[in-house]
């Protein structure tokens, strides 16, 4: 398929996934705040720090209040990581490849975008009641994934989209886990221990993992929660699962058995998959979960860059030779 189309499919899914995760991240932050009757420091400043765009936020909003943060992450057209911006990017990408996706896929991303855009036009109401809006975002995203799954051929293009979605999800899960760690530190020390379970439950809920976690491990425990979200093989938002499935899609694209190490993206992603397959949570916790997740995010960036270089980059004078099968 066209490099440009593959590129756009990849980013369409990445941005849609990002929008869902921004909603999840904000949702859990709002809930945690409710559980902090007397938080130490400025809790919303911590949320902004976790987005990595503090400079942009303070330049335009001044102080980190609940309403400002909600607005910044949902309906703010100027903020590159707001839900409305993610949807705009996702739709812009979809729009350039409408012929490569099913009309149902296009209509869902278009409707979702129009929904968010309408919400952005009446900005105040989202801040008044963010929960309905955030729930609608998750639902729209699930619908999008479902429609893509059910109406598109699971061929090369679909796999590029899936890789985009899964790399994004792995990255976002790591950010949600990491940010939640940060919020723990805000708890008043005297009640800290009793809030742990509450916080861990909120974290699990934020990635829709609470019930599935309970089926796997009955009691809520920090190390087990980390095991579930980082290393579980089967839970769809766990980091390891995302990496496994992304590799599966990459193999499908390369049309090679899973052991192939021919190209740089295959090598980088393969190494990462192996690392998580054999990891144990104690080592990760000893290293420090924050440091570990930081490292993961940078490796994910490398994988993304390698995929771009291998499949999407258009060079003014292409170095690839025409392939016999393509030149029929």
């Amino acid at each position, binding site marked *: 398929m066209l490099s440009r189309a593959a590129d756009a499919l990849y980013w369409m899914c990445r941005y849609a996934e990002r929008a869902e995760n921004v909603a999840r991240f904000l949702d859990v932050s709002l809930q945690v705040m409710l559980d902090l009757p007397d938080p130490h420091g400025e809790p919303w400043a911590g949320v902004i720090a976790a987005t990595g765009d503090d400079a942009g936020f303070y330049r335009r909003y001044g102080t980190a209040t609940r309403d400002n943060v909600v607005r910044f992450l949902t309906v703010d057209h100027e903020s590159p990581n707001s839900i409305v911006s993610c949807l705009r990017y996702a739709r812009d990408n979809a*729009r350039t490849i*409408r*012929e490569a996706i099913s009309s149902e896929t296009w*209509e869902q991303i278009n409707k979702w975008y*129009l929904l968010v855009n309408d919400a952005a036009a009446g900005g105040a109401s989202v801040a008044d009641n963010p929960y309905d809006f955030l729930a609608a975002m998750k639902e729209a995203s699930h619908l999008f994934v479902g429609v893509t799954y059910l109406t598109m051929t699971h061929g090369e293009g679909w796999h590029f989209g899936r890789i985009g979605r899964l790399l994004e999800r792995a990255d976002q899960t790591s950010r949600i886990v990491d940010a939640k760690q940060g919020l723990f530190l805000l708890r008043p020390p005297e009640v800290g221990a009793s809030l742990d379970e509450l916080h861990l439950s909120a974290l699990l809920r934020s990635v829709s993992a609470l019930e599935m976690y309970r089926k796997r491990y009955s009691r809520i425990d920090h190390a087990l929660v980390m095991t579930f979200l980082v290393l579980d093989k089967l839970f769809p938002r766990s980091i390891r699962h995302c990496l496994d499935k992304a590799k599966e899609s990459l193999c499908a*694209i390369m049309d090679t058995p899973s052991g192939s190490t021919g190209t740089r993206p295959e090598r980088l992603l393969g190494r990462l998959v192996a690392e998580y397959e054999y990891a144990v949570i104690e080592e990760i916790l000893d290293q420090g979960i924050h440091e570990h997740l930081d490292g993961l995010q940078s490796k994910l960036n490398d994988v993304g860059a390698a995929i771009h270089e291998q499949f999407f980059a*258009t060079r003014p004078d*292409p170095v*690839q030779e025409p392939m016999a099968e393509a030149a029929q």
Partner: protein
Amino acid sequence: MDIAAYEPGPFYDEMFDPERRPRPGCDLLARTMAELPDTDIARRQQAAERALLHMGITFNVYGHDHGTEKILPFDLVPRVVSGKEWTALERGLVQRTRALNLFIDDIYHKQRVIADGIIPREIVETASSYLPGCKDLDPPQRIWCHINGTDLVRHSDGKYYVLEDNLRCPSGVSYVLHNRQVMKRTFPNVFQQSRVRPVDAYPSELLRVLQHVCPRGVATPNVVVLTPGPYNSAYSEHSFLAQQMGVELVVAKDLVIRDGFVWMRTTRGLARVDVIYRRIDDTFLDPKVFRPDSMLGIPGIMNVVRAGRVALANAPGTGVADDKVVYAYVPAIIKYYLGEDAILPIVPTFVCHDEKQRAHVLANLDKLVVKAANESGGYGMLMGPQASAAERAAFADHIKANPRNYIAQPLLGLSRVPTLLGDGNVLEGRHVDLRPYVLHGRDIFVLPGGLTRVALKKGSFVVNSSQGGGSKDTWVLADENGAKDAAC
């Protein structure tokens, strides 16, 4: 809704005769509309427009930042064309397309039509759409204009006239297909019983035409649609057609010329391209041959075209036949190549290049419509009867300064179709034109339907979307005496 209050007025009304009786084929539609409560019509109208918005059937409005995409206003009341009328139109369109194709081929080869005195050389060679770079080009199967949109209007005398040909990149066919989908959802019962001929075949017919003109020796041609990109006003149509045909939509940077062929950049390296349905203007196609400032083109592609290693649809250079001055000669062109009289009349046209005709035009500016030969979209026009004395004087100067560039025609009383106004509870006549789509492959195919554009402003004759126009579904009815592919 109150149909009885509808006033057909002094123009030809497509739905009602002067005695306000529904015309043949329109009874059921009129009855259904009369029975519908006003609120229901408003609801259906809104639902239809929302459906178009969700489908993303939008055009880009240049020069706006937020909300850059708009849907083309859509009116629920369809324009109905009887089977008998359509058969005559179809024959006329096939004839016209065949003759124009022969004309273009001749113009870029021996120019017999000029030598035989049918059309003056200077008219042809001064047409801005005449491309000397296409001389001796031999497009596959000798087909130049594969996709045409011919604008027709119906005058107060009840006859259809050709208003102009669009032989380069006619747009709008996606509206025909989408409007139809929306109408099927909105009026399923009327639709079925009226025996409306389907339009769904267009994408497959188009693909068949594109495959038909593929270079020699290619068994399974790789067809692509070439678009200027997402910011072009017709982009959603480009992607829609590619999607419906199941082919790639490419922009110039996806294509590269190598070893004398055109290739596209894919995730697995380069893949050869055999046929390009180009939706960019021909002068932008190849900066090495036409406009050197073009950023949308593929440098060197004309060499590949000349070598017969890639086909372009439409071929470059076809614009010479839809020049507004050449238009005046089309009846003679048809006669010359086919030995037949033109089935579809043209609007009587005065060519200002001719001294006698120019004098007549200048003396009658208050009665005529003057058009610049190289403008489109309703620009560069003088509506004589409605213009001020100052506007007419200014146009007279334009004509004298550059007579080749102007033609003049009597003002036609464009027919009207009842159109919903306000919240959908008022029905008034609005002027329309009709653009059928003609495909020239092995045979010539006319899509039974077309784009009915409607001037939504009261009294306006300008139907262009850039100037307050909207669209309607066009119902071509199956012939009364034979169930010619009845509606599905």
